[in-house]
């Protein structure tokens, strides 16, 4: 409904004072268990148990410590999760294809349960990539010490493959390395960054604009890094990842050293529940909802209490070294 903000502006100017007053709605409801867990295939996992609270009465501690959390896999009891500093931890590592059921019971907040199937990892391959330096310059020249900057484009053809008839859900991310450390980046000899997001214009990333929002004039054309295989069911799909605003930063780097650089591509299969929750989070708030002129989206939850999300993820990572391309720049930034 982003387009509607354009309409709401004149509304606000005309008659809407948007006047607000602190208000006690005089209803509360009974707190219930909230269960959150993101299960990664092949890894032990954690469950965070909290309880719901009345928004205006935030308690000091929302964690629930008196619960028992039972783990079932394919309907077979596996273990009670161990309580360890605000978390309940498994020793079991669920594998792709297994159905995990978590049942939590607290003497104070009752029972919550959720089921999720761990997805199979995605199939994809990366073709020949292109690295092109757009610009580079040295900040300061000292013997054997490099200080400078380079701007480059990286183009990666990624072929996503879908092999089954089911609808599958994915998340995409990439990370260049070395990354800038927030506190020490100005002393890091080399780091890479990339601010490109134009790949999100690819139609597979704009599915989050729902059919109703599309009909209702949603004009945002920018996607989020989530997609499904609905556009390439049982087929391949070529995603051209074109990263056009990438930077190589060199700070007092030793010209004679080799600094490993690269990019890590991650494509994850998500359980449908986790995908739905991501979409809910990405949709965010809405001006018309705040003014009482539209209905708030219901938060997605697959927990029996409607509080929390138990999702599963299966990730396949691919690393590409850029060292051979960045080394000449470090050796001669000017």
């Amino acid at each position, binding site marked *: *409904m982003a*387009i*509607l903000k*354009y309409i709401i502006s*004149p*509304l606000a100017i*005309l*008659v809407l004072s948007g*006047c*607000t*007053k*602190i*208000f006690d*709605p005089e*209803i*509360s*409801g009974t*707190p*219930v268990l*909230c269960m*959150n*867990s993101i299960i990664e295939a092949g890894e032990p996992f954690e469950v*965070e148990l909290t309880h*719901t*609270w*009345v*928004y*205006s009465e*935030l308690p000091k501690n929302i964690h629930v410590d008196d619960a028992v959390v039972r783990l079932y896999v394919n309907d077979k009891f596996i273990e009670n999760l161990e309580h360890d500093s605000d978390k309940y931890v498994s020793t079991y590592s669920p594998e792709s294809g297994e159905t995990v059921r978590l049942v939590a019971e607290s003497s104070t907040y009752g029972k919550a349960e959720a089921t999720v199937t761990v997805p199979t990892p995605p199939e994809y391959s990366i073709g020949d990539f292109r690295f092109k330096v757009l*610009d580079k310059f040295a900040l300061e020249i000292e013997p054997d010490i490099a200080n400078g900057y380079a701007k480059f484009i990286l183009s990666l053809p990624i072929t996503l493959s879908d092999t089954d008839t089911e609808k599958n859900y994915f998340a995409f991310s990439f990370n260049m390395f070395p990354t800038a450390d927030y506190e020490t980046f100005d002393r890091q000899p080399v780091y890479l960054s990339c601010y490109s997001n*134009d790949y999100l*214009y*690819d139609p597979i990333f*704009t*599915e989050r604009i*729902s*059919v*109703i*929002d*599309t*009909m*209702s*004039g949603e*004009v945002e*054309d920018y996607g989020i890094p989530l997609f499904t295989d609905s*556009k390439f069911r049982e087929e391949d799909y070529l995603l051209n990842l074109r990263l056009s605003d990438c930077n190589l930063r060199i700070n007092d780097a030793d010209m004679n050293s080799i600094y490993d650089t690269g990019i890590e591509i991650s494509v994850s299969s998500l359980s449908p529940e986790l995908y739905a929750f991501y979409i*809910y989070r990405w949709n965010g708030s809405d001006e*018309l*909802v*705040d*003014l*009482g*002129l*539209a*209905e708030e989206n219901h*938060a*997605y939850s697959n927990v029996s209490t*409607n509080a*929390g*999300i138990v999702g599963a993820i299966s990730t396949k990572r691919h690393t590409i070294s850029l060292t051979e391309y960045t080394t000449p720049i470090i050796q001669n930034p000017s």
Partner: protein
Amino acid sequence: MKRAFLVFIAVSLYISVNATKVTIHAVDRSAEDVFAEIMAQTNLNFVYPSDLLTDLTVTVDAKNKPLGKVLSAMFKGSDVTFRIKGDKVILMRKAKPKPLPLPSAEPIYVLPAAEPSEKLEEVVVLGTRNQSIALDATDNGTITLNNSNIMNTPVVGGEIDIIKTLHHQPGVAPGVEGFAGLLVHGGENDENLITIDNVPVYQSGHIGGIFSAYNTDVIDKVDFYKSTFPSRFDGRLSSVLDVRTKDGSTESHHGSFRLGLISGAFNIDGPIRKGTTSYSFGLRRTWLDAILAPTMAYINSREESLKNYLNFNFNDLNAKIVHRFNEDSKLSAGIYYSSDYFKGGTDDIFGTDSSSTTIYNEKGRTKLRWDNLAVSLNWTKRFSDKFTGEFTAALSRLYTKISSKNILNNNFNDPPTYDHTFVRLKGLINDWILRGDMAWHPDERNSVRFGASFTNHRIEPNSMIRESLWDQKKYSSRYISEVLKANEIRAYISDDITLTQKIRLNVGLSGTLFSVDDKIKTGISPRFSIRYLPADKLSIKLAYNRSTQFIHQISNTYISLPTDQWVPVCGDLKPMSADKISVGAFRLFPHGISLSAEAFIKWQHNIFNLIEYSYLLPNESSWISALTSGKGSAKGLDFKIMKETGKVTGHVSYSLLWADREFKDINGGKPFPARFGNRHKINILLNWRINDRWQLNAAWTGMSGNYVTFSPQVWQSPELNLGYTSEIPLFAGINNYRMPFQHHLDISSTRRTTHGYWTFSVYNVYNSHNAIAINRDYHNGRPVFKKVAIIPILPSISYTWLF
């Protein structure tokens, strides 16, 4: 028919007839309207046949003149004469009665006369024309408004408004306060059939529905049916609003010009060919753009790097040409056009280098336009004294267009780059309509109406083109919605039967064939109503009404927006329908006071709602998959005590309502209250004609708050890869919370001058904070709930110049 008389009364007998003086200025106006104005200025009893003033136009210019002289001037040259006897003014025909009038939009409801016209004085005086119709008719919940009713109802911004006038009626709710929603007996906004001169229109609001899209200056009459619909109307579940515009004068030119805080209106009408052909033209246009331009210029002058642009306007245009071939035949051509236009955007300059050269320059522009068009050609023909017909050919069209453009000049790149994104959405509903409506009066006991219509719908829910040029790479996508073509054939017949003096019956049947997607859907809508007169001034009524609806609106807001899409009932979905039973009583008291009460129960079938997680449906899905069908019910009571004559008129009304919805896929399948099912609603409307110059109007509204989906509790989300948690509302049920009782007092005053009148109004006089939403927010770092109110005290002023 000629022996059937309706009798009207005004109150207060202490002023003698001869001393009564009136002030009135009318040029070729409907005699009924002028007479209504005279009745309101006097305290006399007026007695005349119901059809006496129909189709009669009069010209009179009197300032504080004796009533007798005014009436003489008024009826000079007509076949109407009058007699003053005691406190009664009796109007009658000079010669033989005219044949049946040309059919009008409303059924010709008559009270069987006990005596012939020569004994008029012995007829029991019952009340005003509206009251007599309400007493005599078989239907429940019918309201007739004229221009003066609408003008004398105070509203937001002083913009006189049909729909906001109806909000003061029992059983009618506005939805969101201040907006022109129309929610009748627990129904929804898209369940109201709104017609202008017999042509349905789809968009009823301006600026998101703050103002309704009808220029009230051109309105002749409004009939509003909220319980029992005449058989000639079908296609919507909740109500019918039949708006008729004025015919121009065939004798002289005259008009008005009104200037208010938000809009101005210009209206003119007159003869094209004296005596036979007339025109009328009305234009209302906001001048918000004239206010916004200097305002934005001032704001922008204070900011170097960011410029904001905002332009908004709306307008309504009505034009009509009427030609009378003879006394029996009339042809009219009319056009109604209503549009909103919005343009907004920013110019953002950010980043300059050491030589002050701009690095980035971003321009964003969004335009919205929505047009409503109704064009009609109407031929009215009296074939004989007993048989008349009205034939209409029309086009009704709602067109919406939204475009958004964003341009980014990036001088940092070498060479500089030019990026842009462009999105355009279009929506259309286009109806070609042919219809014929007949009235046949075979004898004095039967009044038969029958007719048929054909409508060709072409519906294109938003089609979208999305194009991006980003770093010299072009991305484009196109979402072209399916063009939905539907044909609707409808036929109806009804008979209004006077069984005895005490019992009157109306039976009707309407049938519809609706073809879409190569499927034919059908709807049968039987109607039945009966009136019993146990006493002279008391009627009791029972009615059953079935309605069927084949086109509905998809909207994810509660207000009227151009982005709302009308769609037909497609696929395996069944047409919406409603069955309603109402029981009513109407009682007349002396002094023009009447009391009406109506109890109703309504069952709605196959009504639509968006599914709970419609936001998860990707844009390639069919919109049908975002809908779920279910049922609803409503029951309640409408009560109104009304005074229609004398210096002080008005009404007090109360509504009691329970309205529920139930969908298998929503709220866990459990029923939930309708959002705008306001349990209690009280309206008090007073109009006080202080003297010839001043009139004071006051309206107080109090009603239970709307239901909202409210989550008092929240839960903490996982961090995911966002790096932070957030508070997620815990779903606690749909429409699970009723907002606090809301109330406001609105007043307006009219002062007549030599050439026109001033209107002063204040909305929400005591600045009541009527909450419409609850937000989660922070105050001094602490989480708090805040209630949101949108309309504070709002004064306005306008002047209308008459010429």
